[in-house]
């Protein structure tokens, strides 16, 4: 009988001890804000394009952080972003959930064909970055440095004068390509003109 009692006693006291430790930890280390969402938000490209089905990058980050949406919805971010989010959240990589098959992984910018622009200002209102300059009845132009290529301005344009084109590669933005890999001879043969 004393054995039973001592067993009960020791279990109860252990329960009390660990329980209070847990309770203390729960109070002490409580987190009120959601740092995960901030971290996820930092990984997103901030194009605010809405292609993920959320109105902006921050809401999508919150949805991902709260496990309400998959990590593969960010089309401008591409696979790199999915990998980064998978690493951050300890999830498995899943391929990009692209609705469009022609998703290209190069930075894009909007370009307004200025002689066709009628100056309706609709694109200006559509631009989440305030990256389009212009006034009513004046043709508009895109500030390339600010444009994220989200293509939200394309649809509202009544005369379809906005194109989303790949960002032009310059000497400063150009980077060496990755070599082709094992089994391939490096380099490329280039026909040369103007040989003496």
């Amino acid at each position, binding site marked *: 009988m004393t054995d039973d009692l001592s067993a009960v006693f020791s279990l109860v006291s252990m329960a009390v001890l660990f329980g209070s430790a847990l309770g203390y930890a729960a109070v002490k280390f409580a987190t009120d804000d959601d740092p995960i969402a901030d971290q996820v938000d930092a990984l997103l490209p901030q194009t605010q394009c809405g292609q993920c089905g959320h109105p902006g990058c921050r809401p999508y980050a919150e949805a991902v952080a709260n496990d309400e949406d998959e990590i593969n919805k960010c089309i401008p971010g591409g696979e790199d972003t999915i990998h980064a989010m998978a690493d951050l959240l300890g999830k498995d990589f899943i391929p990009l959930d692209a609705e469009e098959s022609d998703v290209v992984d190069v930075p894009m910018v909007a370009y307004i064909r200025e002689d066709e622009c009628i100056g309706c200002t609709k694109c200006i209102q559509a631009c989440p970055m305030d990256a389009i300059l212009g006034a009513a009845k004046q043709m508009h132009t895109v500030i390339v440095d600010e444009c994220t290529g989200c293509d939200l301005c394309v649809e509202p344009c009544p005369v379809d004068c906005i194109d989303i084109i790949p960002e032009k590669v310059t000497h400063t933005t150009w980077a060496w390509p990755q070599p082709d890999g094992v*089994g391939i001879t*490096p*380099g*490329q*043969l*280039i*026909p040369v003109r103007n*040989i003496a």
Partner: protein
Amino acid sequence: MSVLHVTSPHVRKPMTTNAVMRHVIYGTIPGLAVLTLLFGWGTLINVVFGSLVAVAAEALVLRLRNRPILFSIKDGSAILTAVLLALAIPPTSPWWITVVGILFAIVIAKQLYGGLGSNPFNPAMIGYVLLLISFPLEMTTWIPANLTEGVAASPSFSQSLALIFGSVDRTVIDGITMATPLDTFKTYAGNDLDMLRSASVLQGSIAGVGWEWVNIAFLVGGLYLVARKIITWHIPVAMVTSLFLLAGLFYIIDPDSYADPIFHVLGGGTMLGAFFIATDPVTAATSNKGKLIYGALIGLLIYVIRAWGGYPDAVAFAVLLLNLCAPTIEYYTQPRAYGHKKANSGIAKS
């Protein structure tokens, strides 16, 4: 006309991976020759047969993986794996031993990990260990070297062929097999010194009859590799030195229970392991400091397993265990980069 647009540098040293593999195979020739002289044609037959199996297995897996077949076979790494495995197994082992070992080495230990350069473990040693733990009997029955007292000449070519491929009653050869010197030592040392001293395989030699010659031959081949700058001296020297010192220490303490250091250094697969197995660049450490640590730890493990472990020889186990540690050694022996106060260690925390 066209010119080539290619990244710098434009000149290269004329040494290729294919040549590296080829030279390592050349380096095994002295050892192979001595093995053949002492134990008959079995080893040579195994080398040739094993190479064929290895190439076939490699081609098959490459085909399944949709990789260029000829390109990879030409590098000679599959043949090298087969040669090393064939040198390690007994010369009279039946053909299916070779097949199982090589298939496992090529298919699982090498290609499933991604092929040449991506395998964490030495494929030949993986094959060898698989055979050793699965078929202990076949893997430990060596015929005695034909230098041993009272032993007839080694099997002839046709006898070897029959032993390997024929369906001979294996009990026939059981009569002529004998435990290896290390095995003998393990069995009797410390317990039955009379038996140990009378064991014919140990008579009149410094590391088991014939075995010292085998090891010296591999040493010669290894020196060739060092001279050709295919391998550096760090791993073999560190490994042999640590084995020698450790064996010497215990021999001084208790010469009856522990073999003398020369016996350890020239016995079993020490030299083959030191120059040909442990130096496999894919699975070893690469920095000089790392190589020294890697080699020394292999020597240590070999001695520990030989002296107190369950198996008579331990080169394969020691090398595999250190293969496992190689990345860690690597990460903690990074050289100090120019312009940095101290060397990095460990990997980036992401």
